[in-house]
């Protein structure tokens, strides 16, 4: 029996889809059987981030309305041997196309076959959100160290607890060590102080994420990507391993410090 985990945030653009794609790929790399479910009906993106967009035949609405069998809609990621699948969202419907009961049924069916069912939740708190959390037992809240994102994350945490999804875990995404150092970005302690939930991981702002989406190759597969490393660690933590947080300190040589002091450089 697998685990159904929803990845949510409230605010749009903080990295839910990127996180879902990378954690899913990371877990598959560790040998687990994973299915990624895109519930952002009408604005699908998980397919594109995974590089599977030209393999879509059927989608989640087709499955739920009985137009096809579940197996026909699941897209196998050929980079992995039977361990990573995607159930894409529909692009020509909207979030009223499915309801909470249907989502619960679907999740129950999926967890029979997969170790991890990762639900990519759309932004917002309306039907899309309600659908996404319907079948979930656990939640990961993704946020950025930035006022609007934290405010929305707080609201989402309240709504998750109201829906009895206990102990959501936090991923702080797109953190910039230089800005944290100069006092212009909240650090991890600040975030935990405000949101007061368990920390699952921290992901650095990384240009490689843009490249990875350009290519449709999740950063977790790239050994040179800092964000990829963070996601690999997060996948290991989800699978039960204890992995220390990456060192986020800015490495600044003494020469640069002298330069700054004398007024040169940033």
């Amino acid at each position, binding site marked *: 029996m697998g685990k159904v985990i929803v990845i949510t945030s409230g605010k749009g653009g903080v990295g839910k889809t990127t996180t879902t794609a990378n954690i899913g790929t990371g877990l598959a790399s560790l040998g687990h059987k994973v299915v990624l479910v895109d519930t952002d009906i009408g604005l699908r993106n998980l397919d594109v981030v995974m590089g599977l967009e030209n393999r879509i035949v059927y989608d989640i609405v087709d499955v739920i309305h009985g137009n096809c069998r579940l197996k026909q809609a699941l897209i196998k990621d050929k980079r992995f041997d039977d361990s990573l699948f995607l159930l894409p969202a529909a692009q020509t419907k909207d979030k009223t196309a499915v309801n909470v009961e249907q989502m619960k049924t679907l999740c129950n069916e999926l967890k029979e076959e997969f170790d991890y069912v990762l639900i990519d939740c759309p932004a917002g708190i309306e039907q899309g959100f309600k659908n996404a959390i319907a079948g979930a037992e656990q939640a990961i809240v993704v946020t950025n160290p930035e006022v609007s994102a934290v405010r929305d994350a707080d609201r989402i945490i309240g709504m998750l607890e109201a829906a009895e999804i206990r102990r959501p875990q936090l991923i702080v995404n797109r953190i910039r060590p230089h800005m*944290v150092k100069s006092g212009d970005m909240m650090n991890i302690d600040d975030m935990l102080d405000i949101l007061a939930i368990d920390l699952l991981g921290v992901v650095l702002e990384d240009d490689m994420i843009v490249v990875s989406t350009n290519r449709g190759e999740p950063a977790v597969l790239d050994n040179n990507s800092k964000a990829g490393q963070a996601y690999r660690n997060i996948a290991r933590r989800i699978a039960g391993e204890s992995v220390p947080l990456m060192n986020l300190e800015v490495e600044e040589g003494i020469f640069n*410090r002298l330069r700054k*002091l004398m007024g040169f450089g940033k």
Partner: protein
Amino acid sequence: MLEFLGKFFGRDAIKADASKNVAKERLKLVLVHDRASISPEMLQSLKEDLIKVISGYMEIDQNAIEVSLNSEEDSVALVANIPVLRMKRSLDRQMPVG
């Protein structure tokens, strides 16, 4: 001297007006208000429980009771206005307390 050393070792985050500290304070305040809401169902349930408990000590005008969650600038308070008709001589418990 301390400031010089501070700059050298990169302790900008310590200054009180660092923008992240401003962000933090603003967030804390905003969240006090965002979190301070109670659903109508819960409020009704709270009212009924209050009536039960207080009726054990005094007779109250159940129809005139007012309960609300008030948000001030930096705090939230539960405010209840409960008109009392008569005090009871001894505790008359109709509901288990605690």
